[in-house]
Every structure is written in C-alpha cells, then in structure tokens.
C-alpha cells in the first residue's frame, strides 16, 4: 500500500505508462518492433544505400549484400524502395489515423454529451457513412481529386471516422452514468471541466486502443487501395504499391512481393497486439 501511494504522488498522470507497465512483455515487444519500423522508415534518406528511383541494368537481382532485398524490373534497389515506401506509408498511416481520431473523438463526444436530437443526427450520419462500401467511397474521391499522399490520408481517415465516433460515444456515455460525473454537475462544474478534467482521463485508454486499431486499418485499407490501383502513383511507392507491383512480377522475383508484404503483416500484427494488451489492462482495472 505504501509503495503505491509513493508512486501515486510521484506521477499523478499515469494512465498510459501505467497501462503499459501492467501488461507485461507482449506490449513491450509490440512497442519495440513498431518503434524500429517507424524509426527505420523515417530515417530512410540516411539508411537507404541507393536512390529509390535510380535505375540500373541489374534487373530482378536476387537478394545479395549489395541489394539486400534484390532489385525490381527497372533494376531499382528494393531495399531502398521498401525503406522510402515505409516512409510514405508511415506518413499516410499517421495522417489518416490522426484525421480519424481527431474528427471521431470530437464527433463521438458531442453525440454523447448532447444526446437527444444532435446525438440522433450524428449517429445516423455515422450509420450512413458506414453503409457506403469503403472501396467505392475511395474510388469516387480518388478519381475526383487524384491520389496524393495527403489526399489518401484524408480520405482513409474520413472512412474510419464513424467507427471511431461510435466507440468514443459509447465509452463516454458509460462514464456519464457514473456518479462522479453527476457529482461534478451537482457542484456546478462547467461543461469544459466536465469534459477535459473528469471524462477525458477516463477514456484515454480506449482512445489509445482505438488509435492502434485505426492505424492497423489504415495500413490495410491503403494496401488494398494500392492493390486495385487506387494508391500512390509511380515512381513513388508505398508498401501497398510495392506489393501490387511485386504481385505482377511474382514469377520473376520472390523478394519483390515478399518483403513489403511481410512488413505490412508484421506492422498490423504488432498494432493489433498492442491494442489487445492495452485494452486488457484498462478493462482489468477500470472499475473497482
């Protein structure tokens, strides 16, 4: 008891670190792997041995010490392309996740707080957006505006907004049922205080979990869109585009498809692992 008190004094804002600390090694594995992937991708310009668009005569080379992942149909170094592709993928993932979380959290919170008509309107709107097939939605917008990384991030982010809003709404609604919320209303707390000081700290973990899930979904969506040719256009590439190109040249080079696909797989796996672990930690200690 004494030690927990000391801990509490030393670090009163402890939601995230505490959740991580309570979950054990799997969380650390997920965080470690994700951190390596992010750092390596971001540091692509420093780490990449070649210019990702530099062509050579050495086409479909198998992996070697010079070309770690081999080369593609134009003789470009696949390792460098995967690194730079990772950079672009990370940009889209981060951007789209930020868009989905930002709009989704505000959307969900307004719905939960306003209740009544506003809630009804916002949630039926969410239903409507969710009823549109995601690919169709993306197709329309990309053919209208073109597929730049920024637009892709925006479109994918918007696609994931309604599910986020729904989750946030139900989490906030559960908190509003608690007596501490009523107590705060009863002593005259302002809406701002109710939201930021009372509710937000209690929904921080679900928000983190949803962020991880959203990031995984963005990766998947981006890869699927690239695969049907709606993604980033050459010569730029994301992992998704690399998978699509590698798939067409599968019989010339196994490594072309393998490495980007593997990276997508590992990243999504680790994000889901992280989400599961964080979710467990919050549900086990959420209610006394």
């Amino acid at each position, binding site marked *: 008891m004494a030690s*927990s008190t000391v801990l509490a004094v030393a670090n009163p804002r402890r939601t995230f670190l505490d959740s991580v600390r309570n979950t054990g090694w799997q969380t650390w594995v997920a965080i470690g792997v994700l951190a390596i992937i992010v750092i390596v991708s971001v540091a692509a310009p420093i780490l990449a041995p070649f210019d990702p668009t530099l062509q050579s005569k050495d086409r479909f080379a198998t992996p070697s010490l010079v070309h770690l992942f081999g080369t593609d149909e134009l003789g470009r170094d696949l390792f460098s392309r995967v690194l730079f592709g990772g950079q672009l993928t990370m940009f889209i993932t981060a951007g789209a996740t930020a868009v989905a979380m930002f709009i989704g959290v505000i959307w969900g919170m307004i719905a939960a707080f306003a209740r009544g008509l506003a809630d009804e309107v916002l949630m039926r709107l969410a239903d409507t957006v969710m009823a549109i097939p995601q690919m169709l939605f993306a197709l329309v917008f990309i053919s209208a505006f073109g597929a730049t990384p920024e637009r892709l991030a925006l479109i994918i982010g918007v696609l994931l907004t309604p599910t986020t809003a729904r989750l946030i709404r139900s989490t906030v609604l559960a908190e509003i049922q608690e007596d501490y919320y009523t107590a705060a209303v009863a002593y*005259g707390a302002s809406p701002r205080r109710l939201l930021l000081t009372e509710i937000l700290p209690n929904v921080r973990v679900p928000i983190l979990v949803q962020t991880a899930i959203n990031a995984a979904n963005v990766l998947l969506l981006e890869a699927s869109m690239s695969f049907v040719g709606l993604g980033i256009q050459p010569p730029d590439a994301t992992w998704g585009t690399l998978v699509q190109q590698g798939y067409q040249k599968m019989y010339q080079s196994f490594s072309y498809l393998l490495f980007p696909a593997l990276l997508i797989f590992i990243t999504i796996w680790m994000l889901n692992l992280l989400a599961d672990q964080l979710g467990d930690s919050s549900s086990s200690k*959420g209610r006394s």
Partner: protein
Amino acid sequence: MTSTLPADTVLDIRNLTVRYGQTTPVDDVSFSLRRGERIGLVGESGSGKSLTALSIMRLAEGAKLRGEIDLGGVNLLSLSQKQMTRIRGGKVAMVYQDPMSSLNPVMTIGRQLTEAIRLHSTATKASAYLQAIELLDEVGVPFPEERMKQYAHEFSGGMRQRVMIAMAMSGKPDVLIADEPTTALDVTTQALIIDLLDRLANDYGTAVVLITHDLGVAAGFCETIHVMRHGKIVESAAATELYENPQSDYSKILLKSVVDLTIDVTKPIPTGDDVLSVGERPVESVPSRQMSDEVLLKVEGLNKTFHLGSGRKITAIKDVSFQVRRGETFGLVGESGSGKSTVARAVLALTGVDSGTVNFRGKDVHSLKSSELRSLRRSMQMVFQDPFSSLNRRQTVAQIIEAPLITHGIGTRAERRAKVAEMLTLVGLGEEFADRYPRTMSGGQCQRVSIARSLILDPDFMVLDESVSALDVSIQAQVLNLLRELQQRLGLTFLFISHDLAVIRYMADNIAVMRQGAIVEMAPRDELYSNPQHEYTRSLMAAIPVADPTIERARRKAAAQLAAAYESVEAL
C-alpha cells in the same frame, strides 16, 4: 473428531483454508451441518464468507484449497472438476445474490428449470416439465403454468429469486447454500424469501447455509451462527446464545452497531471503540438541533414521466410536495422504484421535471439560467450510494475534494490545499489520505471523501441518496454518526433518502414514505413510528428484521403474511 459428529451430519468442513498467492482470504474454517439444519455465516465484506461457499462448490477459481470438505463421506476437495459437476446442483446447490444475472435472459424459465431437472435425474422431457411446474408452485410462483413460458425479465426481483430457489431445489440437494439471497431485494420481499427457505428446509430436510451481512436476517432463520472476520470464524454459537450473550469483541461490535427500530435516536450509534469500552466512557447524547421555522426547500406538485420509446412510459414521480426547514433532516423512505432518487435529482435540478416547482431559498431551481444555477449549486450538494462510482478513479483524493473550489474559482492553490486538509480532518480521514487513489481505499473511506467533497463549498443543504446503504454495519454506524455530528457543527440541512426505515428513523426529523412515485404518508418521526397511518408504511415497518432470534421469528411470520397479502394484490 469424526466420532463426535452426530449420525445425520450431511456436510462437515474441517480446517478449510483458501489461498490466493500470498493472501489467505479463508483461514482454517471448520463447521458442520446436520440434515435440515440451518446455519448462518455472518460477516462484513471481505470476511471470506462467500468464498467459503464457493469453495464448497469448488468454484473458487485460481485458489489453492486445503483441509477437508466431507459431503456424505466424500471429500469434495479430492474430486475432479468433472466429478464435481454431478455434485453441484445435485447434492449441493447454491442461490446467489443477484437473481437476474444468474438466469439466462434468452431462455424461458420453463426451459431452464426443465434442463436443470433432467441434468440430475432420468426424467423425460414431459415429466420434467410437469415437475418444473410443481416446483414453481412449491416456491410460491403464482400461475406456474403460464410463468413457465416467460423470460427472466418478465419476473420481479422477488419472483426471480423464487425461480432461482426452485432451480436449486430441482436436484433435491442435501445442502442448499444461499449467498446473500435477499440483499438485492426490497425488505417486504425479503421476509417472503426467508420464509420460503425456512419452509423448504422443514419440508425436504435440506440443510441450509445462509450467508448474510444482516444479523437480523440471520437471527430469524438460523439455529447456529458462525461469525466470520478476516477469513476466520471468530465465534460459533447457537443463535439465541449469540444474540443474548456474544463472546467475541467483534460479535459485540456487530450487534451493537446495528441500526434498528429500538436504538436511542438522541445518542450516537455505538461503534467499535464504544462497544469495547462499555461502562468506561459515558456515551454523550447529541444535543437537540436548532431548527428554525425558515423553509429552506419547498417542493410543490412535482411530476416526472420517463418515456421509454415505442410509446411506453414510466411515471417516476407524481404530485410530490414537501418542505424542508433550515437545520432539519427530512427523510424520504421507499423501496426500489419508488421514485425517491428521481426526487433527489429533481431537487438538485440534475434532471428536468414535467411540472411542479422546487424552491430553494426562494428561487425556483428549474427556471434559473444555467449561470445562476451553477452559482446556486454551491449551496446544495449531494452524496451518492456507490462510494466507488462517486469518485473519479483517475484523480487523487486531494484533486477530488479540491475540484468544487477550482470550479467556483475560490482561493489560491495554497489556500485550496489547506482547505482540503481541513476537510479531510473534518471527516475523520486525516491529511495523509490526500495523495491516495480511490481504488486503494475501502468503501467507508471513499464515502468520507465524497462527504468531504460535498462539504468543501460550505453548503446549506445536502441530499444524501442511500449514502450508507452500500456500507458494512460497523462502517455505516461511523458514517451516520459523522453525518449527525457535521450537521450539528455546521448547521446543515439534510434531505436523507433511504430504503431502510431504521436508518431513516435514526436520522430524520420528518419523514415522507414513498411508493410507486407518490408520497403515501408524511409525518414527524415519533408520530410516524408510533402510529403509522398508511397500510404500506405498516407493512414496511413489519418487514424490518430485528437482531433478536425470538422476536425475529415471530415477526417474520407476520411480515411474510402481510407481504404475501400485498404481493397477491400486485399479481392481479
């Protein structure tokens, strides 16, 4: 040891110890049960009484069990889980506290009962169905044939508990364990359920283990009572013996701290320290409070209906009027669903009303602008039932208590911290609690924090909505004493809401009895208790268990009859 046991012993527990890692929540517990015997395991939360029961059923997951549980010559601790499935519901059955979560919501009652019967016998579907109808009839469910086709949500709490008992009895068990079977039920229903258990024990010779925190309930039902504390049995005695002449300190505290209809309302309730130093320290009586004629709160013609969608609606309160004078405690008593909490929320403008007015210090709280209302909230506060839900689990005690001051922009940081420390001392916690989190504290401590938070703005008026109902007997006594002391010292006015007539009697000067959203009777305390006018008030009073075996047994019979009369009227 075995040789001393009577021949008709059905269950013999010897040196049962339950371990979870480093903790030992059940420590060296021994007791035995004869055929048809009724014993009680009595204790407060955390005493290990429920875990003892779960261990008998071998349902204590992840626990290490030691000792012996001898059921008709078989040591249950040596059986595999597979073998246990035959014992469970067969030779030993259990009834739990919450009948709703124990029944499957998507299966008809009939199907659940029929399956339970077939599990432990070779009956055909048809004959099991007939047996199930018989069982329902036996446990007092009216129109059993029609009820078989219904689902759990179509039953009232009391009826659901009857179904649970029917299900437990379906395997004709030797031992029935009832874990707080009436705690979630209203007092009037409670008497009926205990009476039913009593009858079943008589008719079938089933031995019953009643687990309860309520000494009154145990008094009326049990022949032998084992008082548990911190995992140990601290006293085992015949019921009459225990109540007349408790031996252990803890039993004494439990018995003296009970708030019943006989306690002296002018004195503090004896708590642990008082009981153990009997005779040394005269208990001071609380000086009578100064009540002015000034009406602080006036509620007139309050109505509120909840619309449940698809045209269904529930009238939560109808035409509720009362007034509270400055300095008094106004009591609002009623069973679950009587609308008393809606009144509390309406008084504090936490919920809107359909019609009627709430005048606080001459202002109608429901027609104020939100800024005016927010400043008025400084003078009126609320303490809730659930001590854990009332506190934000991500905030420290100091942050929780300080919040109202920050909200109203009062004082500098240093001043606020000083005030928090003062409040902590006032509610008897001390400054060392300032940096703790609610989850490291007990229910009683959390409730004190809740009270400290409500007092920090120096309010005139406090609504206490079942504020002691979730607390253990000994803690309840402390909190009630604290509230009265604070009221005296700070000149507070209380609206005290409870389902417990004994607690209301101790706290309130004037009392209104609510039933189905309306006030059925309103009178000063002494008048109400000496001469209750409304039939419902009388049945409520008759339903309160008394912690005295002789009185309680006679009382329960009468109460069960009264309640049965009421229930049959309701059923129509």
